């Protein structure tokens, strides 16, 4: 996880900058740019290039997008926050809004901060110029694009034209951007690349000076001694993390927002000699994955909530048969089909408790895009070491959000996918009561001549089914014990902010960034708020009680419902374990990521 380097000034300023935009400093270290149009306008392409450019420029970056509920088309936004300080959230307010249509303007101008710049397509948008809070900057985007491209491309190219405009306003590196355009469109025929470059040039050379009195420039703050950055979204980070972790086989079934993980793995794994299967449903997918894992290759399956519900029976088998397995849940809004394109963290209960019986499993959650990569490694490590199913929770906001992060040191990280086929000695027990199960995959010679059967029935050390009372007690304890052993090796997470005080905000998953930023802002206001991020959710690390003891109020901020008794899902788990009535909840279920100010409002007295 990134360590804080500098506080983003603009975003952390508690009071609005106010007045005119040209009063803002020329040098900025943080800008939130929201592109609002329709989903077919390619604003995601333009936004993603900005993000990638930031990554290449050693800047921090985070994006945020919405997907319309119509099947294709419909209003859509793409937001990029770029900073030379640490970027922890996609931003509560925009400094800069690009409105392609009247509805884009109307729906999003409320999000523009006072003094912010509205860049609009004057061919489509008529803003209320009497509203003096903003700086207006109208450009005939459609007309100029059509003109630049010779009228053949219909509306296509507006996104790249706007990219050029933005490059001019923010003094971005045009050369690098054109390089990115060439990379992006390079595979296709030459004329497409040329068209795109023409659109970019047209935007870049537009005389913005006639409209704006100021050009912005990001402070150059090279991060010394750090490797270069890679820029990608959370699902990419997760998929490549799995590959680095030595996962070579998997199976899945499409569902938003999980699908892109499977699409990447399906395309990539063959390069590594592996394979990802699109199954007929989630029941088959998890079973295929268990077939791969049983064969010796730690495998992955995944879905979003509805599909995970279908996998719970087989995950229970993995608990009982002690087969390592990775199960990714890219959470979306629930329950049921719910809000497929929104974000929520309401599958934690299911992850921990979702199968019948006492079927212990491990649950981890990714904090940000970078952590999607590393959490996959941690999950695979645990699955292999403890021969257990591990659930990885991500969510819809991480899935599509683009961030730049320090390039991982792959050389030291890459895991060997090779199963252990060395012959097992005589006396081998598949399920030793005293030890941790390490299965002998098929193909392994058993020197004692006795071959193992793995099973979901309760069994003895040899895998024979048994209903013997004492044995079920002993085996249940065995399966519990290994997770307790894991709990001992999980590091206690560090408190961010003052190590003791009034308020500790506890978070998990993608609330990491907004919570941290809330701590920073509170600090700026002189309020002592600290935070603790939990990455290992089941088992929880030991020693949390001693941390909790140092604060007067513990507030668990999570994107799920307060439930029947007033507590969110992680809060409930923590209260059950520690019986600490100080633990309270800050929850919400509006399908959107936490805004920093929502957290501040929620936790400050």
């Amino acid at each position: 996880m990134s360590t804080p380097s500098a506080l983003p000034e603009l975003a952390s300023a508690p009071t609005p900058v106010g007045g005119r935009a040209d009063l803002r400093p020329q040098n900025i270290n943080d800008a939130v740019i929201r592109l609002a149009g329709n989903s077919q306008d390619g604003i995601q392409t333009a936004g993603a290039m900005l993000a990638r450019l930031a990554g290449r420029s050693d800047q921090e970056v985070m994006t945020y997008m919405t997907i319309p509920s119509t099947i294709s088309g419909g209003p859509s936004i793409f937001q990029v926050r770029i900073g030379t300080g640490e970027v922890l959230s996609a931003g509560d307010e925009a400094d800069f809004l690009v409105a392609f249509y009247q509805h884009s303007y109307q729906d999003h101008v409320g999000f523009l901060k006072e003094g912010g710049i509205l860049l609009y397509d004057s061919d489509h948008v008529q803003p209320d110029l009497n509203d003096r809070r903003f700086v207006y900057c109208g450009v005939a985007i459609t007309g100029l694009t059509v003109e630049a491209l010779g009228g053949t491309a219909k509306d296509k190219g507006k996104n790249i034209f706007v990219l050029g405009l933005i490059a001019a306003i923010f003094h971005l590196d045009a050369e690098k951007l054109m390089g990115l355009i060439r990379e992006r469109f390079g595979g296709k025929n030459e004329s497409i690349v040329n068209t795109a470059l023409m659109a970019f040039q047209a935007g870049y050379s537009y005389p913005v000076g006639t409209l704006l009195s100021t050009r912005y420039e990001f402070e150059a703050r090279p991060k010394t001694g750090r490797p270069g950055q890679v820029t990608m979204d959370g699902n990419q980070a997760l998929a490549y993390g799995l590959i680095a972790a030595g996962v070579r086989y998997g199976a899945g079934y499409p569902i938003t927002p999980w699908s892109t993980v499977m699409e990447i793995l399906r395309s990539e794994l063959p390069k590594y000699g592996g394979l990802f299967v699109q199954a007929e449903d989630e029941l088959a997918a998890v079973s295929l994955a268990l077939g791969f894992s049983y064969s010796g290759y730690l495998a992955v399956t995944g879905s979003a909530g509805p599909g995970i519900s279908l996998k719970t029976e087989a995950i229970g088998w993995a608990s009982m048969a002690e087969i390592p397995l990775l199960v990714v849940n890219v959470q979306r809004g629930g329950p049921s089909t719910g809000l497929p394109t929104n974000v929520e963290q309401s599958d934690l209960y299911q992850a921990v408790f979702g199968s019948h019986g006492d079927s212990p499993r491990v649950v981890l959650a990714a904090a940000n895009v970078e952590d999607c990569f590393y959490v996959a490694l941690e999950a695979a490590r645990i699955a292999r070491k403890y021969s257990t199913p591990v659930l990885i929770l991500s969510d819809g906001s991480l899935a599509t959000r683009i961030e730049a992060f320090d390039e991982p040191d792959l050389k030291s990280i890459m895991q060997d996918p090779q199963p252990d086929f060395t012959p097992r000695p005589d006396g081998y027990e598949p399920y030793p009561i005293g030890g941790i199960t390490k299965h002998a995959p098929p193909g392994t010679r058993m020197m004692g001549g006795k071959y193992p059967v793995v099973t979901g029935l309760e069994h003895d050390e040899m895998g024979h089914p048994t209903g013997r009372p004492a044995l079920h007690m002993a085996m249940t304890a065995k399966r519990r014990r290994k997770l307790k052993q894991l709990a001992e090796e999980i590091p206690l997470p560090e408190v961010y902010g003052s190590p003791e005080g009034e308020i500790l905000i506890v978070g998990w998953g993608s609330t990491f960034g907004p919570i941290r930023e809330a701590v920073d802002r509170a600090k700026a206001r002189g309020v002592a708020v600290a935070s603790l991020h939990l990455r290992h959710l089941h088992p929880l690390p030991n020693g949390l009680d001693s941390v909790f003891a140092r604060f007067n109020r513990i507030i668990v901020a999570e994107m799920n419902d307060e439930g029947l008794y007033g507590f969110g899902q992680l809060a409930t788990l923590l209260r059950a374990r520690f019986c600490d009535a100080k633990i309270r909840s800050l929850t919400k279920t509006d399908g959107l990521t936490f805004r920093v100010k929502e957290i501040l409002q929620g936790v400050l007295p």
Partner: protein
Amino acid sequence: MSAEDSPTLVSTPVSEKLTKKALTADHPTWCPGCGDFAVLAAFYKVLERRQLPHENIVTLAGIGCSSRFPYFVNSHGAHFIHGRAVPLASGVSLARPDLHVFLFGGDGDGFSIGGNHLDHGARKNIRMTYVIMDNFVYGLTKKQTSPTSPVGYKSKTDPTGAIDQPVNPIKKLLAAGATFIARTHATQINHMIQMTERAMDHDGFSVIECLSECVEFYPGAFDPANPRKGGEFKLIDEKKWDGTPEDEVRHDVTDEIAAYRLANVPFPGLFGVFFENDRPTKNAFERKWIETTRARLGSPTDLEILQKTFDRMK
């Protein structure tokens, strides 16, 4: 790494002879007289005859009386959950071309809860040998109507006699695209052995429906089909391609329509191979894709491939 490289390391044929003794594991918990005993005996015989490397035999199953099979065979094996054994076996088969994947189960496991996986395994033509012990009843849960129970059969869930038209397993498999489909009978051990050997030699998704009597909940289900009990055991007369006039009327196992027609013969129906064709397996397609991809890349290490990908993300 390629999935192919590794297992060959350990699958070098072993010199010890594979005897029935070496193959025998726990004593079956089946009821005395259950047809499944004969299926087990035939399987031992096949393995003895074929002398596969012991460690490369995998016996998999779902849940049911018949699905207890893996406990009774001393080989690598897994006893999975109800109805999902085909995808489990698919995982094993696709990852491990060195293994011989055998799958055993019942009519409920295969045609009811597992019916969809059967179809998709068939159309994808995933290499495995699947023996469905069809006893026309749910044995383990003690006598409920199964998807193959004939109309009129009195079970605990159809006290006045079953009313739903049963599944026709052969038609189902044909329509789904299974590439080897045969039918046999637990009392006909030689025929069963023969079918099993042909199935395991078939490179693809091969299924044998084996009528296997449940003496506890449906005794006498197959009496008319049981020659020992005076019934008939009518074999499919396969084409010999000998050019004789008799051969004209014999069954061409590659003829899907003809097979579908044979599947209409009423109970006890015909026995033998209904259909066989050699459509490429998903195993082969996927492996080819892997090989083409890797060939295109040259021979980079896993680290190099991933590093290159990351370089593009800078």
